[in-house]
């Protein structure tokens, strides 16, 4: 068998390596226009920041190693320009010499990945303006930083790559700003989680301008970037990072008649087969099914690229190993904050037609008395009628990867909130609480689903509603430290005697540190005839807005 693979980063090389093991006699060739293969794209921001000291640490295997150890031919700086499905050949251009050659194949795997979307603005071609896609980009940026001459940077786009880059540029001492067109950073995350992440970045000196579009990049006399102009301001920028999203890199496939969607995403079935016989597509260039909604989606992740690259090899001759799809599981670290998600966000769940209930629950990440414990905030999203868990997000300075992976597994298995509440999870003080964060969150959600209490998200609390009665039931010193503007303070212990200070007919929102005291207060007020009581989800701990 002649197996030809286009693209040699994550998906392409995974496929090549497994093909070599499964089909020892096959002739396996990787053609890529990149100068590097088999590098860890996900590690690029950390190489830029210096946490990873040299580029070579990110390279899993070189073309020579592929040849010697695996008998796989890798042609770098070779671009596939045309696929002829009828003749089973691919036209390839040597980018160094310009020479063209036809490569025959029996099976073709397209792993051409994605390319950054470039905003159509003036100044995009200036020096010191860079995308962060491949090792070439990262080396260029790192070399600029190592000169020590850069002082300011603007990152265009507040997705996870933009945030990771902001952190790593700040590590070099640069003053960094992020400009994001949408109203929030971290697309795909719920607004509370995104707002908390934004606060953390601001605390670490990164400026964030959301809801602002970049209109122009300014240059100096040397043709280098010097500033960024947005709808609202001009920011100094010795370096401009373009991280405003990516699109599938599939022009060659589309031109050959391989079915793509409007974005150019190659549509594949669960066996990674395209619409054309003997042509498969994997990684960032191919569609993946969302395992909750069943919809074909674009989910360009390294985790998926590695999985599909591996799987496709089993399906070259007959559909054998199906890909179950994705559920949007991602995780990001920004400075000392971690944020992770899995399943559907609240917005995605509603868009898919689910009637949902959500909670936002702060807990310590391990026993609260164990030194080193850190707060994490768990958001759960469940379908009201079935109690099925649809999504989860965890943010905080503590450990979030463990709960998110547990929740991801639960969601994949169709877990209900009731079942989650009863999960037998590992417990000993250095690792967890007796009731782990996910179980506590499930219990709060069950109380809400049972109608015992109603909540309001910090992002939905209308502070300007003149009828609103905002009651803070924390102690006086806590209230003194930080309170929501307009909140009145009646500590829980005094609520019974001082209840008369409140109007039972007015809509009342109760707030405390995490929600526990607010829950007790809300039950008390409801019993006393207050008709419209809600608690502030996540309390002051998850409140992402101004305090006084």
């Amino acid at each position: 068998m002649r197996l030809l693979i286009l693209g040699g980063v994550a998906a392409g090389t995974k496929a090549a390596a497994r093909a070599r093991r499964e089909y020892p006699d096959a002739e396996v060739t990787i053609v890529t226009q990149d100068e590097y293969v088999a590098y860890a794209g996900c590690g690029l921001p950390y190489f830029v920041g210096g946490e990873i000291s040299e580029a070579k640490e990110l390279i899993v295997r070189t073309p020579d190693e592929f040849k010697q150890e695996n008998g796989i031919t890798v042609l770098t700086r070779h671009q596939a320009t045309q696929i002829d499905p009828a003749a089973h050949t691919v036209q390839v251009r040597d980018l160094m010499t310009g020479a063209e050659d036809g490569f025959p194949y029996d099976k073709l795997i397209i792993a051409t990945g994605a390319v950054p979307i470039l905003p159509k603005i003036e100044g995009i071609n200036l020096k010191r303006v860079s995308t962060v896609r491949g090792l070439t980009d990262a080396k260029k940026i790192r070399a600029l930083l190592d000169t020590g001459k850069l002082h300011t940077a603007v990152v265009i786009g507040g997705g996870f790559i933009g945030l990771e880059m902001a952190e790593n540029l700040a590590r070099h001492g640069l003053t960094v700003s992020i400009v994001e067109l949408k109203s929030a950073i971290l697309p795909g995350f719920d607004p509370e989680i995104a707002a908390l992440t934004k606060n953390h970045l601001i605390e670490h000196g990164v400026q964030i301008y959301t809801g602002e579009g970049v209109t122009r990049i300014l240059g100096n006399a040397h043709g280098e970037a010097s500033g960024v102009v947005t709808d609202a301001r001009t920011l100094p920028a010795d370096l401009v990072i373009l991280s405003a999203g990516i699109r599938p890199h599939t022009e060659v496939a589309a031109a050959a008649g391989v079915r793509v969607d409007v974005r150019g995403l190659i549509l594949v079935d669960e066996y990674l087969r395209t619409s054309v016989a003997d042509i498969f597509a994997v990684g960032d260039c191919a569609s993946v099914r969302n395992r909750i909604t069943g919809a074909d989606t674009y989910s360009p992740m390294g985790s998926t690229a590695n999985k599909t690259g591996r799987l496709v090899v089993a399906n070259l001759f007959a559909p054998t190993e199906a890909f179950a799809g994705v559920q949007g599981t991602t995780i990001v670290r920004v400075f000392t904050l971690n944020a992770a998600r899995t399943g559907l966000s609240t917005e995605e769940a509603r868009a898919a037609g689910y009637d949902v209930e959500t909670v936002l629950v702060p807990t310590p990440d391990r026993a609260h008395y164990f030194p080193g414990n850190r707060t994490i905030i768990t958001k759960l999203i469940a379908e009201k009628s079935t109690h099925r868990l649809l999504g989860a997000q965890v943010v905080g300075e503590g450990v979030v990867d463990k709960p998110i992976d547990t929740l991801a597994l639960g969601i994949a298995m169709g877990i209900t909130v009731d079942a989650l509440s009863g999960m037998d999870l590992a417990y000993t003080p250095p690792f967890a609480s007796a009731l782990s964060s996910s179980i506590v969150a499930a219990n709060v959600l069950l109380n809400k689903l049972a109608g015992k209490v109603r909540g309001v998200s910090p992002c939905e609390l209308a502070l300007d509603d003149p009828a609103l009665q905002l009651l803070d039931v924390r102690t006086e010193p806590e209230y003194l430290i930080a309170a929501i503007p307009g909140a009145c303070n009646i500590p829980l212990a005094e609520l019974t005697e001082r209840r008369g200070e409140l109007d039972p007919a007015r809509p009342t929102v109760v707030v405390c540190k995490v929600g526990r005291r607010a829950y007790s207060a809300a039950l008390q007020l409801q019993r006393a005839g207050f008709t419209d009581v809600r608690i502030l989800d996540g309390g002051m701990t998850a409140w992402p807005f101004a305090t006084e």
Partner: protein
Amino acid sequence: MTDYTLNCRGMQCPGPIMELFKQMKAAAPGDTAAISVTDMGFKKDIEVWCRKTKNTLVSLTEDAGVITAVVRKG
């Protein structure tokens, strides 16, 4: 002048700040209290609390997951 020591490790909010509040109420100007806690949220809280109550935060350190703040009355 008296130096008080408060072990508030293991206490969750509002425990530590309440203990400190009580101690500072009882203390004389110039007295100090060294309070150790395992609730990381305390770190931010203590700075604001000292500012707003006009007490002096003499030091704030973290070692092996334990935060120690030394606060002087006044």
